[in-house]
């Protein structure tokens, strides 16, 4: 399943890059991320509590940043697996500087849900994937705003 998105940030490319590559921000803004442990090389072991409504599970997996070209693009991978299946989202984040100190992040990626959860929940997979990505970037936007206004981020 293709995932695409375009998100506007009120900050410079460098500021947005710094935020989006900060593991604390990643943990805070990845919906349901309960644990994030560095294992080196921009790779983190993660525990993700994800789902919708009563369909909820704890997925063990990892979050990785690869193919980094600071501050222009990197590849973000989030994956986790549980008894009911696995989720895997992979996307290239491209950072584009806009006029007036704004930055747009363009996301181009691919999400896979596998196992029982895919076969049973197919009706919801696309919507929930979109929603989850939306939550992630909305949270990041909030973080940036809070940071810029001098307030403390929630991290």
């Amino acid at each position, binding site marked *: 399943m293709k995932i695409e998105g375009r998100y506007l940030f009120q900050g410079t490319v460098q500021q947005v890059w710094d935020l989006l590559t900060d593991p604390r921000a990643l943990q805070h803004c990845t919906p349901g991320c309960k644990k994030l442990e560095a294992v080196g090389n921009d790779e983190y072991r993660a525990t993700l509590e994800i789902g919708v409504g*009563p369909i909820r599970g704890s997925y063990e997996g990892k979050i990785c940043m690869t193919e980094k070209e600071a501050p222009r693009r990197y590849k973000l991978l989030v994956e986790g697996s549980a008894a009911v299946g696995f989720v895997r989202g992979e996307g290239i984040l491209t950072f584009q500087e806009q006029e007036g100190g704004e930055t747009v992040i363009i996301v181009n990626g691919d999400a896979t849900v596998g196992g029982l959860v895919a076969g049973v929940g197919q009706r919801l997979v696309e*919507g929930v994937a979109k929603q989850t990505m939306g939550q992630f970037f909305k949270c990041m936007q909030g973080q940036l705003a809070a940071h810029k206004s001098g307030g403390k981020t929630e991290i």
Partner: protein
Amino acid sequence: MKPARFDYYDPRSLEEALELLQKHQADSKILAGGQSLMPLLNMRLARPKVIVDINRIDGLNSVKSWNGGISIGARVNQRALEREKQVAERLPILREAAQHIGHPQIRSRGTVCGSLAHADPAAELPALALALDAEFVATGPKGARTIPSDSFFVSYFTTSLEPNEILTEVRFPGSPKGMAWSFLEISRRHGDFALAGVVAGLAVDPGRRSITGARLVCFGVGPTPVRVKEAEEALIGQPAGEKSFHAAAEIVSRGVDPDNDVHASADYRRSVAGTLVRRALLQVWQKLGGK
């Protein structure tokens, strides 16, 4: 396909139930009719540590008249919508729509409030509640609060109920004077969740020339049932008939943001939502004596 272990409680009073929810919060899940929850438990897609079965609570099992309409307690099953005289008299659309909810063997256990709290985006009752301006009575440790329908449904399977609250009652007010209703949905098989559906309400002036009130709620076309206000507004003041209905349908098709799944694409759902709106409005118009 067997449920994972959980602790099971079947409290006899609402207070007891609320205490359990307060204690276990998001680890707990309320079991009412179970027609949505049990499949998820059997498949282990839902893994609550604690089940609070509200079926043995005293009360919460009546259908009462309320504000020209009816109120329905947490334990009332969906068959009541077909069985209870008050429903047929006051809100016949609920009775009409109830026949689309699963099958008789499901409606015997499935509860009205349970379906609302489960908030399946393709389910019938949430759309009806939104269309009919229902209000939701959420009872928590600090007592009851009332949630209007436009802020009850949050997203897929998600409502504004807190983990320590029970939806103890849903209240459907009487239909606005002169408003008639229609309910349409399409599914690939009888009794399935809708690919798309619509609840349409319409009122016309006594001379039956122009539209004085409209209500359009679509379901199966996004994370929650959606009221398409823009289309409603476009109808007001227009002469009732194919042309204005068609225009409203176009707005609906443009206005909804559905998902793709194996049975229907987003484009299909958009288009069919419009079709259903047009057909439903024509049906209501006929109920109102129009041609």
